[in-house]
């Protein structure tokens, strides 16, 4: 670990200014940041501790819910409102990490967790995400759990979050206070960037930008499913995961919002996929057509070829269950 300055911020404004204009990182649960700092994959000069700013509230917000950035994954998963109205979020949270990690990991930190690409973790192998322009070791290497959607010639790293996949299906917005004090709000799709030729820039956040919370709108579907396929029964990242929020009316799909984990360089959602399902009567043919839309855009790399047929099967099962 490289020596760094540690600042415990007294309020959000102080946190923002402490982090602005330097190579700084906000520290909340630390479940990902500290590991990466120990390996010097991340080496901030300044660590600004935001865990005591009181940003951990989970509050009713009209028809929706506002979740503070430092609400822990455990608290959020156990919240009775979440369990009742946004169960896909609760299930996604509980499908991730381990009990110990969820007790520390927070909502904002989870959104920002870094990829598990093994070459990103190995400072002796080139990685464009870690050191821009160095090259990508995953391309041509071991690719069993890499992204097949949203990749570029510079990076095929997967976004590993379960929580963020559910948030995407729930049309969540991310609330940010910028270094200059202005408030901004982002749709999830806009919040995350595609790797392109700058895979080290994963979100739209600028130095000093502080995530203060996320806002869940009222649930748009009563049938919510989170299904995760993984290599072992617990404590493994998704090979494929699907978050589905569906509402049926008169035997037809009135609302369809599906998001995917294990497939994309960011928590993935394809508007064409949702559009194709909406207004239609459920059928095996429809589901397969939708899967064609989603997966027709996939580019796999050998080790991750299996994700395409696996995603197709899981999608079909999830949609059958959600539309019964």
């Amino acid at each position, binding site marked *: 670990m490289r020596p760094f300055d540690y600042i415990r911020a007294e309020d959000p404004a102080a946190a923002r200014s402490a982090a602005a204009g330097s190579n700084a990182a906000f520290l909340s649960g630390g479940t990902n940041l500290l590991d990466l700092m*120990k390996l010097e994959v991340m080496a901030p000069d300044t660590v600004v501790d935001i865990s005591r700013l009181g940003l951990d509230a989970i509050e009713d917000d009209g028809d929706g819910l506002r979740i503070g950035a430092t609400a822990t994954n455990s608290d959020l998963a156990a919240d009775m409102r979440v369990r009742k109205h946004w169960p896909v979020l609760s299930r996604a949270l509980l499908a991730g990490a381990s009990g110990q990690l969820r007790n520390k990991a927070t909502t904002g930190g989870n959104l920002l967790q870094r990829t598990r690409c093994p070459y990103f973790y190995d400072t002796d192998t080139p990685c464009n995400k870690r050191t821009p322009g160095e090259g990508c070791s995953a391309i041509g290497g071991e690719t069993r759990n890499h992204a097949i959607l949203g990749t570029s010639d510079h990076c095929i790293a997967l976004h590993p979050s379960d929580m963020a996949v559910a948030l995407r299906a729930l049309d969540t917005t991310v609330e940010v206070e910028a270094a200059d004090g202005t408030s901004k709000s982002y749709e999830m799709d806009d919040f995350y960037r595609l790797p392109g030729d700058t895979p080290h820039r994963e979100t739209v956040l600028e130095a000093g930008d502080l995530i203060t919370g996320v806002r869940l709108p009222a649930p748009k579907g009563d049938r919510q499913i989170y299904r995760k396929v993984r290599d072992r029964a617990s404590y493994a990242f998704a090979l494929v995961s699907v978050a589905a929020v569906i509402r049926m009316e008169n035997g037809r799909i009135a609302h369809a919002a599906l998001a995917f984990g294990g497939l994309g360089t960011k928590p993935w959602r394809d508007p064409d996929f949702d559009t194709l399902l909406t207004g239609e009567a459920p059928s095996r043919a429809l589901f397969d057509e939708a899967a064609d839309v989603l997966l027709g855009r996939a580019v796999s790399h050998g080790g991750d070829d*299996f994700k395409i047929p696996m995603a197709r099967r899981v999608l079909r099962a999830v949609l059958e269950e959600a539309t019964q």
Partner: protein
Amino acid sequence: MTLDLKVDGQSEDRAETYAQGILGTPEDRPDGHAKVSGAATYAADDLPEGCVFGMLVRAPGHGGVTVLNEDEVRGTAGVLAVIRDPRMIRNAAQGTANAAPVQGVDQADYIGQPVALVVAETAEAAQHAAQSLRLRTDGEAGPVNPDDVEAEGEPDTMGDLDAAMADAAHALDVVYTTPSMTSAPMEPHAAVAWWEGDRLTVRSALQMLKYNRNELADSLGIDPEHVRLLAPFVGGGFGSKLGISADAVAAAIAAQELGRPVRVVQHRRQVFETVTRRSETRQRIRLAADDRGRLTGIGHESLVSNLPDEAFSEPVSQATYFAYAGAHRVIGERLARLNRPASGSVRAPGEAVGVTTFECAMDELASEVGIDPVELRLRNIPDKDPHSGLPFSSHTLARSLNEGAARFGWADRPSSPRARREGEWWIGTGMAAAFRVNMMLEAEARITLTPDGAVVETDMTDIGTGTYAILTQIAGEALGLPVDRVDVRLGDTTYPPGSGSGGSFGAATTGNAVWLAAQEIRQAIAQRMNCAESDLTLKDGTAICGNTSRAVVELLDGASLEGHGHVTGGKAFQDVRQSTFGAHFAEVAVSDVTGEVRVRRMHGTFGAGRILNEKTARSQCHGGMTWGIGMALTENMVHDRRDGHIVNRDFAEYHMAVNADVPPLDVHFLDERDPWAGPLQAKGIGELGICGAGAAVINAIHHACGVRVRDLPATPDRVLAGLE
């Protein structure tokens, strides 16, 4: 005086006649409370005054190594030294090597080889400085994939297997593969070294101190008599601590150079690379059988790998030689020399992967022949070792199969696959036989009987297996003392040399040495009682002969008695085939949607002679069966095909079975004594539980959903490929 025994023949079961009644019972570990409360000091826990901290530095590539910024790093605050010493070792020594492994820091034979040690005032400064050291390697990767080289070795051949296959009513010719695996002990490899004059003391995480002392001394070029090793508590070994590892040698060198105690703890990512892995294997298995499933031919040919100059070659087919009858045979391994991290013994070297795949092939044969898999095994049990012609010391496979099948409820099983479904889940059951060779090494132990009780001393280790408990029981049983009057002291080379822990031989070998030491004391007590030792009863501190009964404390008269035992495996282990046996049964559910497999229940019946402690033996079997689940479903150390480096070097990405993967494990021990195994009539139990366990799971997958997975582990994608 020493009571010596070379085990050449059968032993009488004296323990059966003893009165204390604590041999075999499920006693708690005497060290258990200290371990769970954090009071037990593992290698890196107990720091001498003035201790400083070292961090190994890995080679980032192959070939000649140049350090680019040594002076800069040496000048960093807190850094005391950057050490690149030709005595540093390339990889951990192999088990029982007794000499230094390949040494040197100028040439990296594999990526991850330790090529420098940075020492600093704090562990954090050392780690940062180690990460700051920039290294250049100038070599291209040598061969790193098993298929890219001409492998060494020829199989053993008997009869004409090709002809047997051609003539067989049923012939099976299949290829199974298993990946590299890691031992993953909870305690990483670590050492604390300090010198007093020319005397070196090292606290380390080690399994076999007698050998480790010689390995360390040879690495350093010093007299082994000048080295003292301490390993009172070891947090798991599984083979990875059989030989001295890079941390201990580097710590000793640094401590000498700096004149201060030095601690070196390997980072978990380093443990993956510097200690020996289980070799990947590619196994061609051929089975020829008549119309009733009786084997006429067996082929088991494997390709394994290791670094150049390593003596170890994964003995994949070690048990295949004697497992089943069949006159025509081609059995053996070929070794590919690769620039991957070194391979070596990992829990049940040979059988863990060899029995597992062979028992999968036997399941395939049972399907071919159309008979029950249990019945197929029963029809092929040999009456003597088919390869050597030697008799078996005991043979409990048939009992294990029959009792295990009854306890598991095997008889209810539908005979064909895909017969049971619950929702999207296919349900199936599978079984496999278990075999593990039984070995005895050499061990010594000393017991001092004082008015307070007995003190047992040997440099034997307890690597989590329960050695403290069973040696307490053995001494207590023989001397008629309750467990709280026996004090077992281990893990110090100033004590008589035990066998060390490994190959399932530790309990029986060192246990028999303790037993012999106790016999010597029994003889002295009998003498004081004026009776024959065979007429002496010792119980709860009282000596009884005929009508005479006296407290042992009185007989000691304020002094102490010392007994010294020395045991060696002899002809009983050469002229007789000794093995342990068992049978595994598993029930699994396979998702028709995702290919995910969940083990729902597992049963193992095992025959291993006398069980010395029913609780710790059971724990060993639970551990082995859990490893079997990991081998079947999750464990896979991935080598980058371009340069051989291990890609997944942490516990998030190297998937061992976690609690949620492990169902209730039911273990049953056969009541057995093996008179050829030594006076205790106990055989090894530490590894039997893993041998074949994974095959029961793989075979259950087939029974559930009809998919044969021949490339382990059976991850969801591989199962799904069969379901598509």
